[in-house]
């Protein structure tokens, strides 16, 4: 757009309003997380009467936050690694070969990506129950069960994104490597994957973020031993009281890893996400 004077005024005002919309909840989280409990009760105050880091210390003992953290890490990292490894292989095949069934496979990947977890939750829950009844392997309430269900959203997404990334890498690179004596797989591992590394990292971070924030499957498929952060944070609300300051401090702590990861790869993530939609 041409930057007339009017546009500049509109821009400043518009950006101020948008920033306020974004920042307000973030400010509330931060300021509440450093208030003492008596300051959180009653009408909200913009400035805390006293600033204290006590909530950040107490969050670890009020609820077993460290356990939830470990559960979330196990499930999220496993689901991310599984889906990215499977997706790298599949996406390479889709981006480099024309083969019977490739279109059908892509169709399944694209369409299931649009389906909500609620469609798969009940059937998977029943399958897990049945496996436990017949084979005796406990999936419902275990890390493994949750990891499998997290693939329902991370795998199609990873395949779709990585196919796009791989397609943008010139084939001549691998052809040169293959002339130098590498096989297809060798060329994939030694040439294509290193070149696509920013894309692979971006997809991994995206899968991590999505799984870290997942609520639906976790609410049904975890028990007191395998509870993830998404469900565990509810424990700061007791029957009689909500420890809002601790809840907000815990929110800050669980958000930091994903926010940092997101900021580190946002450039690649943005180019990849938009490559799919904007051509």
């Amino acid at each position, binding site marked *: *757009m041409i*930057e007339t004077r009017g*546009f500049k005024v*509109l*821009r400043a005002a518009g950006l101020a309003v*948008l920033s306020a*919309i*974004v920042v*307000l*909840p*973030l400010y*509330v*989280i931060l300021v*509440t997380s450093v208030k003492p409990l008596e300051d959180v009760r009653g009408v909200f105050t913009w400035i805390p009467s006293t600033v204290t880091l006590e909530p950040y210390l107490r969050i670890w003992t009020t609820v077993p936050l460290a356990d939830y953290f470990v559960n979330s890490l196990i499930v999220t990292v496993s689901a991310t690694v599984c889906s990215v490894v*499977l997706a790298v*292989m*599949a996406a390479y*095949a889709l981006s480099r*070969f*024309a*083969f*019977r*069934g*490739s*279109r059908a496979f892509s*169709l399944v990947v*694209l*369409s299931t990506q*649009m*389906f909500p977890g*609620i*469609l*798969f*939750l*009940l059937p*998977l829950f*029943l*399958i897990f129950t049945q496996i436990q*009844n017949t084979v005796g392997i406990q999936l419902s309430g275990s890390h493994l069960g949750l990891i499998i269900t997290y*693939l*329902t959203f991370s795998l199609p997404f990873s*395949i779709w994104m990585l196919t796009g990334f791989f397609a943008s890498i010139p084939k001549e690179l691998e*052809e040169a490597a293959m002339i130098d004596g590498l096989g297809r*797989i060798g060329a994939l591992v030694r040439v294509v994957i290193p070149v696509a590394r920013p894309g692979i990292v971006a997809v991994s971070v995206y899968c991590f973020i999505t799984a870290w*924030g997942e*609520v639906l499957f976790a*609410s049904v498929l975890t028990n007191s031993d395998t509870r993830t952060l*998404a469900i565990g944070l509810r424990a700061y609300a007791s029957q009689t009281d909500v420890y809002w300051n601790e*809840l907000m401090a815990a*929110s800050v702590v669980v*958000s930091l890893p*994903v926010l940092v990861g*997101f*900021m580190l790869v*946002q450039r690649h993530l*943005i180019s990849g*996400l938009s490559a*799919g*939609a*904007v051509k």
Partner: protein
Amino acid sequence: MSSRRSPHGASAAPRRRRRSPLPYGLVAPAALMELLIHIVPMILGVWIAFLALTQFSIANWVGAPFVWLDNFVAGLDPAGAIGSQFYGALGRTLVFTLVVVAFSWALGMFAAVLLTSRFRGNGWLRTLFLVPYALPSYVGTIAWAFMFNQRDGVVNRILVEDLGILDEGPFWLLGGNAFWVIVVVTVWQFWPFAFLMLLAALQSIPGDVYEAAALDGASLWKQFTRITLPMVRHANVVLLLILGLWIFNQFNVPYVLFGPASPEEATLVSPLIYQQSFNNWNFGVGGAMSVLLLLALLVASAFYIRLVMPKERSIDD
């Protein structure tokens, strides 16, 4: 996207045309997982919609009696108690989707237009605007739950004390207000995605088009409606469909705000299926609702696939 044929095709083409088992080997593990986590559950989901599945039969669901269309009658009969709830939720979810998509798109477009121009601080704002999208969804929702909290929350503090718009702070998380709360929270979480997509699309428009238009005396609004909108048409279509599907399926925001049972005025389809299945143990009825949802989404994703599937992929087989 580049063509699949190599430019120096003569030597490469015969090698590629030979049926190699390699692509099948590479796709097989992912295909097997897709089968296990998507195809089998979908088929099973349709099957259980025809079973009498309650808390009594769930432990041994394979032996649950086949009841033909009873679940569909119970769950989808507009005159019945559950059916009227379902159609209410369906209509509400459609309104919810339209309102949230409209606001998310408008905010995203506004921000994208403002940040396409270069100025100091542009990069910082771009990053800031993406924070709601990167934040775990339940964290953002918890913050809003606190802000809409009863009479003493931030929202009422602003409306009553700081701005003086209302005399007394209403209850937000009960009754009809609850619907608007999920609208606000969902828009807050999703508009950055619209912003991100539209920013990418806007950056592909060459600047001299606007210069020429400005020389001809076109106003900013004219430039927006005559140049910007037509140029991002394709991105818009895909974006609106993706956003629409995501928001139609929204579960996290109502679940974190209200717990397992939303107030009736704010019950959407996904949470209703959850309630039927896991609160009321009416798995068969939940299954019947899921089948209807599945059919609707299959139609929507057929549109989506036509839009995003690369053209050349349909030629070779």
